[in-house]
């Protein structure tokens, strides 16, 4: 972390960058927030540890509108999101100085199953095999680092950055689960079970739009669900259809563009496993049209703006 801070200070002081987009210490160990640092002094509050899960790439849309270059720290998986935004002309590469930072798996405070957490030690020097020491109002607890990791880190895309100006820090491969296992589990259910499963999950949705607003692929200036373009502007969770429409269409709109960064599931206040929608599309795309990873490059045609003459027919494989 010190290394990152020093490098950021250096670049800021030299005038090479006008600001730094990084993570700022919170009130507690875990409530780290994304932040633009405009001065060397302000970087005192810079932090980089296991709680820096937030993907900063979407903030680069706004950064591109500001004067001068912005230094941004991107984790390997964040760099895919940035690349996808670049491909869609939503960010200006000229106005970014990208430091690819090492990542050893990121934590979720909601995965630490204790009441009254006061502090969490061990987040800054992550080693997957180590434990976090958690001070709570009601005593000291420990939890394995791995058990407190975000879902996306268990199915990590790898240690490589797909776009950067320089690299700092080591990454660890944290994969210990099959990315599509949960999708497959649902696919194997009967239609009634599937319906019941999603009905239960989606009935929690409060239409807060956190999933949409955090999503680097959902970068529309005006979302269809906020506009009259389709006569479909909605704010309400009036009937269960509203959530289905919203989540199906949202997943469809990001199909072939979603890098599976997992931010939607991370931020959902109701803990809805929203990545299961996106991953279903990713799985289908991989199976039907060949393996595709959004954001991995700028050239490969996206699956939904491409075709082959002998593509599968809709509904193929149905009983």
């Amino acid at each position, binding site marked *: 972390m010190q290394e990152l801070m020093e490098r950021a200070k250096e670049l800021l002081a030299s005038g090479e960058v006008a600001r730094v987009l990084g993570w700022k210490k*919170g*009130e*507690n160990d*875990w*409530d*780290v*927030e*994304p*932040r*633009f640092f405009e001065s060397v002094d302000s970087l005192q509050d810079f932090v980089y540890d296991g709680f820096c899960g*937030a993907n900063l790439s979407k*903030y680069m849309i706004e950064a591109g509108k500001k004067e001068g270059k912005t230094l941004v720290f991107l984790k390997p998986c964040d760099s895919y999101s940035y690349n996808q935004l670049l491909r869609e002309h939503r960010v200006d590469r000229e106005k970014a100085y990208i430091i690819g930072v090492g990542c050893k798996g990121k934590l979720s405070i909601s995965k630490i199953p204790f*009441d*009254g*957490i*006061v502090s969490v030690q061990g987040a800054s020097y992550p080693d997957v095999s180590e434990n976090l020491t958690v001070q709570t*109002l*009601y005593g000291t607890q420990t939890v394995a680092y791995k058990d407190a990791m975000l879902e996306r880190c268990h199915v990590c895309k790898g240690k490589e950055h797909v776009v950067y100006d320089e690299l700092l820090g080591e990454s660890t491969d944290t994969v210990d689960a099959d990315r599509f296992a949960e999708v497959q589990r649902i696919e194997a259910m009967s239609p009634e079970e599937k319906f019941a499963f999603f009905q*239960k*999950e989606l*009935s*929690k949705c*409060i*239409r*807060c*739009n*956190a999933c*949409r*607003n*955090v999503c680097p692929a959902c970068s529309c200036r*005006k979302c269809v669900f*906020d506009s009259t373009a389709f006569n479909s502007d909605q*704010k*309400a*969770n*009036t009937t269960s259809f509203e959530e289905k429409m919203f989540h199906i269409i949202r997943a469809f709109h990001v199909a072939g563009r979603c890098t599976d960064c997992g931010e939607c599931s*991370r*931020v959902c*206040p*109701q*803990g*809805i496993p929203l990545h299961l929608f996106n991953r279903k599309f990713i799985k289908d795309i991989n199976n039907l049209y060949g393996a595709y990873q959004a954001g991995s490059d700028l050239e490969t045609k996206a699956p939904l703006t491409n075709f082959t003459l002998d593509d599968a027919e809709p509904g193929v494989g149905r009983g």
Partner: protein
Amino acid sequence: MYKIQKENLKALYAAIAAEDDLFLPVRSAGQVNFGLWTQEAEADIDTLKTVKSAKDIFFPQSENLYQVHRQEGKMNVQGAELCRKPFVVFGIRGCDVKGMEVLDKVFLSEPVDSYYAARRQMGTLVAMACGRPETSCFCKVFGVDCAAPAGDVITWLVGDTLYWEPKTEKGEALTAKVAQLLEKTDASAVEAEKQNIRAIVEKLPYSHLSLDKWGAAAADKNFDSPLWEQLYTPCLACGTCTFVCPTCQCYDIKDYNTGNGVQRYRCWDSCMYSDFTMMAHGNNRNSQMQRFRQRFMHKLAYFPANNDGMFSCVGCGRCVDKCPGHLNIVKVIKAFEKEGV
């Protein structure tokens, strides 16, 4: 003071639900929210905070106002029924009860919101003291005593025993209905619990936030602070904070085309949204900084200015827990305390 063993609570719920609708924290798909009790529902009174506050029961996220039916070229307008069936909210925490007081200021002052007023009249609040307050709790700052919350009935869960104390007429009436399930007891265990809770509350990191920089006088003073420009940056413009908040009361009114007519409904709106209070000419707050500022200025300055100093935050800490960008009212208050003018 009465008591009932935890294992008998299901019988208590059944007894209440026999006549009235019973809302209580229900766990579904891993999350706890207030919901209607049924035999199948998984009641969860151990979880301190429901994701959404109990506000939803009195001021639903979406509610129908009236319906227009068109048939053979004729219109038929039908207003929504006001709530007529008594109901009980069980397990509401002190902060949420305080939240109701804030909502009352808005909806019960003239012109009275008849939908809300009807529900308030029909609803009985069975509050519950917070045995294990959370780090994010700061209700003390707003004068809430979570060891002895307000409500029609107050309950304390101590070990496996739920203590029950009716406080109002409504509370007494409810107590009478379920009297056969309750056992009279003295208040000693409850008193000890209150001391316990208050001791923990004292130790909570946000319990001693200072509101000196806030209140009616802050309306002009804090508006132009350069701090807003720094504080808002991580804001995603989602509505999480507003939708989990027990006091946010803004709503939008919309029409739904049912094919044969229109259903006019209202639904929660969020001042974080870019189309909040959108008018024909555009929006009077057209940057996220302005929208962000609005939310906190409203809670901490404008609302007290219009409501005898009452803040429209109750310190429940839900926004502290749920904000995807880890922004929250505590950070705002602290920033102004440290650097504000």
